[in-house]
């Protein structure tokens, strides 16, 4: 029993990460009807920004010991900044010129961006991992026989915080309303006086900020940053977005947690080597039986 509770907690931890990345896919897909293949790389770049910030603090100050909350906040902030800058650049250079091109063109361009970023980091780090300094307090909470480390709680809490923040941003702010309007019907939104270009950039910014921040938190959780770290979570987060119904914000969250939990239980039931297979099987199963996902709109079936 304890083991299952432990697995559930692991699943929720990982699910939160998937959900946060999946939101970026879903938002961009909503406004552009395009899969931003480079989104996982934003997550990776965020993790690198975080690790270099923390290493900087480590090398030049003693703040990592004295005031870890400050350095962690700074690291997350840097993760957001780097991811946002990259997202704006990639939208400008690689996606915007292709907005009226055939569907295949932006997709290939996005793959190009993804390959480019991953390999630039691979060369920059010489294919090594950058280790996160030991900032986060060790230790765990014991509830009965179940122990949950602080860092896991932190990751769960942060992902929920990010998601709630994004949800409020989308639902309550004027920009969020504009994003939803553009997602619904770009031409009509433009007629209503919404600056479509600006809204699309802001959508990328919102998704990237989330990915960057999640990257830093995830990097702290696993203890390092590596050039290849965005690839598998990227595919899985996309799966999560499809599971929940791509284009749907609550769907992405639900899909993320669903996938996280499925993976955790798979590890127990079939063995750890199959945990990457389950996401794929789920993806194919959803595409066969319910291509519009759990919460997606049915007319999106062929989109």
């Amino acid at each position, binding site marked *: 029993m304890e083991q299952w509770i432990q697995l559930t907690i692991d699943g929720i931890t990982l699910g939160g990460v998937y959900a946060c990345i999946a939101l970026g896919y879903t938002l961009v897909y909503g406004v552009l009807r395009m899969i931003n293949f480079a989104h996982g790389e934003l997550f990776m770049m965020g993790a690198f920004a975080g690790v270099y910030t923390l290493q900087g603090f480590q090398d030049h100050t003693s703040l990592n010991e004295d005031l870890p909350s400050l350095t962690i906040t700074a690291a997350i902030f840097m993760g957001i900044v780097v991811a946002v800058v990259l997202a704006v650049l990639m939208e400008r250079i690689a996606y915007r010129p292709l907005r009226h091109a055939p569907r295949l063109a932006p997709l290939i361009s996005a793959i*190009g961006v993804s390959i*480019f970023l991953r390999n630039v980091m691979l*060369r920059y780090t010489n294919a090594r991992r950058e280790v996160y300094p030991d900032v986060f307090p060790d230790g765990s909470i014991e509830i009965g026989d179940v122990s949950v480390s602080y860092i896991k709680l932190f990751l769960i809490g942060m992902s929920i915080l990010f998601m709630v923040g994004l949800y409020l941003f989308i639902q309550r702010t004027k920009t969020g309303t504009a994003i939803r309007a553009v997602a619904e019907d770009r031409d009509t939104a433009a007629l209503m006086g919404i600056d479509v270009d600006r809204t699309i950039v802001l959508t990328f910014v919102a998704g990237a900020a989330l990915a960057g921040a999640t990257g830093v938190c995830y990097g702290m959780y696993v203890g390092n940053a590596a050039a290849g770290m965005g690839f598998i979570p990227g595919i899985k987060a996309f799966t999560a977005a499809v599971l929940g119904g791509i284009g749907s914000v609550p769907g992405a969250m639900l899909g993320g947690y669903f996938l996280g939990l499925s993976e955790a239980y798979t590890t127990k039931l079939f063995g750890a080597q199959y945990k990457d297979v389950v996401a794929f099987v789920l993806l194919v199963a959803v595409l066969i039986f319910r291509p519009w996902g759990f919460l997606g709109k049915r007319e999106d079936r062929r989109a």
Partner: protein
Amino acid sequence: MPGWRQHLPRPLTSAPYREALARFRETPAGANVFRFGPYALMPVLGAAAALAPTFFGTRMTFLIILVALYVLLRISDSLIGVAILALTLALLPTDMNSFEQNIMFNVALFTLLGIGLNVVVGYAGLLDLGFVAFFAVGAYLYALITAPDAGASEWAQTWDVGLTFWAVLPMALVLAALIGVLLGIPVLRLRGDYLAIVTLGFGEIIRILLTTEDYYTGGPRGMFLLPKPPFFGRELDTAYELYLVVLVLALIAVFAAERIRNSRVGRAWEAIREDEDVASAMGIDTTVYKLLAFAMGAAIGGVGGVVIAAKQGSVFPPDFSLEISINVLAVVIIGGMGNVRGILLGALLVIGLPDVLRDFSINFWAIHLDNIGQDYRLVIFGAALVAVMVLRPEGFLPSKRRVAEFREADLLQEEMAT
């Protein structure tokens, strides 16, 4: 053409050049140049190939070949042109050392793979990012049923099948096509974006399964001591002989692909690529035709896998990484989607050039980059994919229809602006 792009030098295919070329072609002298030019180029190319290694070294030779082939591909459309091209390609590596011959083998292999992927991406407009999966299927099939004692695979040791290369080729073709269909059925009812990610996932899954199912595949320890293709009592074991094998296979693939493109099926693919809804309204069963494209691409990928397994004499899971899929995609995109001639040029640029520039270094101002071809090839491919899509989406050697398709949107915009 918006903004800064108008300051770029005009590509040789732009209207003024094209018109001048067309006018030249109509004069008697011009007609003769176009008719006999390709033939005249053959001895030039042959001489360049034979002499260049002695005089210029590998790099220059490769560059000369590249330029000569580009010109040849540019102007020859006829069957004779293809025949000359094939003959030239077959004779090219005779005077090369084994390093250069290996490069040419890789170029030919990726041309073959590119032709396969091109059916999927270029003809039918479906983005397949897991092409390596079919490549792996072919390679492992070869390893499993040819080798008498294939490394760490218990299955191969228990069941000593011992077929030959030539028997495995058609089997790999069928098996890969079958797997392509099985994978395609759930996904191809949907639009391309999903296919991209599912195939990407599938490519990774295959690699994971090759590692975990070690009873069959030998896991990370792989399978080795695979036999070479037999050929009238002897074995084809040099890079050049295997290069010829790939070249013949590639020619057959080109022939098949071109024939299909000009058939009812090819036109259906084209219609689906341009507008799926309209195609479907015209009575084309889009799922069936998409499956057909997918299966054909997969089949060619499977054949490529058989060849690489025979060439290397071994198979290991890391040989079938995502990088292969990316390389093949880059070959197709950079060469020009939908165009068989472009594929060869793409393979030379994407596969050959980095190998030739393997140890090339840049030391300029504050920039010191070593081993450009080896270490930075993927960085460059990534940037190149974006650049090609943004600047020249039809690739370097595009098919005419493709240009029309990609430029249509631009033209519409320009019209609206004026």
